[in-house]
């Protein structure tokens, strides 16, 4: 078992860290203030190759793979978790299109998604429920050359910065009488589509989170993604194998961001005549943050490595997401403890890490959903 990263992966980490410092860091203050997504960043992320990490070179990506993606999202999220989630959800549009798309669909949409002209969206959640997928209300019916979609998606990341959206809608019933679903590629220019409200969030400020509104929205027949009835399979696979590790990577980035802030502060803050980093109570907190960060990172790398190897990894991905996002919140909490009153001051980044970590927990499936998955796995296998 080799835990060393390859030369390629080390250079990737270094290069994305530099990109994040140069191009993302200066934007954070404004993003926090206004909640606005900095659109010029899309082209820059395209040029640097972030948008094409999970897409084959044949379609304009670089196909560096999931472990590379984990490292890249980690480094981006250390600087801005909001951009981290914009990036990770973007991949949730790229991957299902390449995995289930027809040749025409791949040729039409993947180059646009990788060249920096737009971000992707993948949206399943609705006001009627995210965890309760079978309760999905959005419907799609066949009508001539179109699928006509009616309904409303909420909490869609990148909603207001995307030209290519993958959504799932109810299209019928299966042989057991349960609802069945299909996946579609939707462009905001389609008749009957509109953007709804844009949420004002307490974390991930700078990533668009909005509503997608379908009122007799006409989606061309050829935009059905995969076969009818495969929608839930496609949606859940995307959430499990792209969404969850993406969120885990954000969590890992936040853990390390909290670690660095906490350590820096502890070495500078002098109380009782010495830096507080000399005190055991503080060292214990730093140790806990460190261990959680490392554990989260390794769980995430293992799950992503398995994905690159073509091994089944839904359980590992779910575990990584659960641990990393919950750890991010704990690490931020402990880092705030170390900062004392300064954790309440907006100039100090650590309060942002706490808010971002909180928002990362219900994203990509709540912790409770993850525990249902893992609990069932234990009962079945142990």
């Amino acid at each position, binding site marked *: 078992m080799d835990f060393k990263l390859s030369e390629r992966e080390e250079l990737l980490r270094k290069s994305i860290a530099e990109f994040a410092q140069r191009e993302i860091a200066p934007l954070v203050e404004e993003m926090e203030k206004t909640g606005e997504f900095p659109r010029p960043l899309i082209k820059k992320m395209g040029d640097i190759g972030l948008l094409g990490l999970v897409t084959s070179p044949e379609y304009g990506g670089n196909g560096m793979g999931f472990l590379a993606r984990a490292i890249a999202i980690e480094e981006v999220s250390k600087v801005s978790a909001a951009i981290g989630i914009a990036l990770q959800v973007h991949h949730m549009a790229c991957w299902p299109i390449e995995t289930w798309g027809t040749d025409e669909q791949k040729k039409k949409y993947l180059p646009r998604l990788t060249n920096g002209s737009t971000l992707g969206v993948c949206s399943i959640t609705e006001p009627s429920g995210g965890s309760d997928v079978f309760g999905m209300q959005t419907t799609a019916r066949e009508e001539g050359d179109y699928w006509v979609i009616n309904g409303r998606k909420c909490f869609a990341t990148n909603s207001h910065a995307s030209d290519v959206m993958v959504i799932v809608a109810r299209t019928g019933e299966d042989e057991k009488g349960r609802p069945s679903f299909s996946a579609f590629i939707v462009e905001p220019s389609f008749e009957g589509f509109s953007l709804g409200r844009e949420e004002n969030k307490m974390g991930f400020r700078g990533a668009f989170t909005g509503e997608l509104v379908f009122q007799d929205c006409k989606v061309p027949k050829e935009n059905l993604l995969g076969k009818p009835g495969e929608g839930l399979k496609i949606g859940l696979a995307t959430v499990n194998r792209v969404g969850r590790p993406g969120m885990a990577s954000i969590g890992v980035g936040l853990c390390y961001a909290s670690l660095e802030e906490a350590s820096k502060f502890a070495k*500078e803050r*002098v109380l009782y005549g010495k830096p507080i980093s000399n005190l055991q109570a503080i060292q214990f907190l730093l140790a806990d943050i460190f261990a959680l960060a490392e554990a989260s990172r390794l769980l995430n790398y293992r799950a992503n490595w398995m994905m690159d190897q073509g091994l089944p990894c839904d359980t590992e991905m779910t575990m990584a997401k659960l641990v990393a996002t919950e750890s991010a919140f704990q690490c931020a909490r402990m880092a705030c403890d170390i900062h004392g009153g300064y954790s309440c001051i907006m100039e100090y980044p650590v309060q942002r890490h706490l808010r971002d970590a909180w928002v990362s927990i219900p994203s990509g499936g709540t912790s409770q959903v993850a525990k249902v998955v893992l609990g069932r796995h234990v009962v079945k296998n142990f």
Partner: protein
Amino acid sequence: MEGYKGFWVFTEQLQGRISDVGLELLAKARELADSTNTYVGALLLGNFTEDKAKELLSYGADRVFLFSHPELEIYHSLAYSKLICQLVEAEKPEALFIGATPLGADLAPRVAAQLETGLSAHCVDLRLGEDGILEQIVPGFGGTMMAVIICPEKRPQMATVMPGVFSKLEPQNRQGEVISIAVEPTEEDLRPKVVEFKAKEQKTVALEGASVVICGGYGMGSKENWQLLEELAKLTGGAVGATRPAVDEGWAPEEVMIGQSGKIVHPKLYIGAGISGVMHHVVGIQDSEIIVVINKDPNAPFFEVCDFGVIGDATQVLPALIEKLREKQQVG
């Protein structure tokens, strides 16, 4: 070394004005020559009369080697190095010092390579070791480390020296000779062509000669706060300097940056406000007579090397200091 005599100095000039750094090096060469019973030679290249060249005698030179030609008024690296090397090979000096200015740093390595001799860069001190070999003290790694460099076998021993490290002598009436050497630079020598010459304005009080230096760092926080330094400088008759981070923030121009890759100063009084005190900067001020440090971080390394350290926010201490000084001035 057997057969080699004389400490030489290349005296840099710009537009006919001889730079201080050459005069500072003449003072050091004078000291070294006196202790080893040899002479001081000055190299002057440009467009000068012999009378003008005589000035260098009053600053410590025994012999001034003058290469005068209109084409040499502006620096040309190939022409200059060719002439210097020819003379060095003929006269065999023990050592050759050049100011560590951009021009000096451009010229010295070429000369050293042509002479196949050793060269040390931006020395902060020169002294003779017990064995008579010239010890050249050089900072490395941004000043965190100092090296003693020697050139045991090759001659001349060459060194470039930071401006401001040594002090020029008071000009005196001295005996000596000016030796004019005929010069006919070829077109080859004058490559590459200079197509434009732009003088830079010297905006600020020369830091190098100031007896009081008020220096600001990242802890000053903003360009607005920088005014406090200017005020204090006015009250104390000092010059304002800056550290690298403050220059990077745009609060002060590059020309007033004090540090290993900027200016070296040795004032009587140095006050550093909002500066952590990394070696890079300390190297630039360590010869100050009194060092005052103002920083809100009690762990700032600068406090290790200060005479008086004030633990406090510079943006609060400076106004109070300015207030006190004004009071004193009114009373006194």
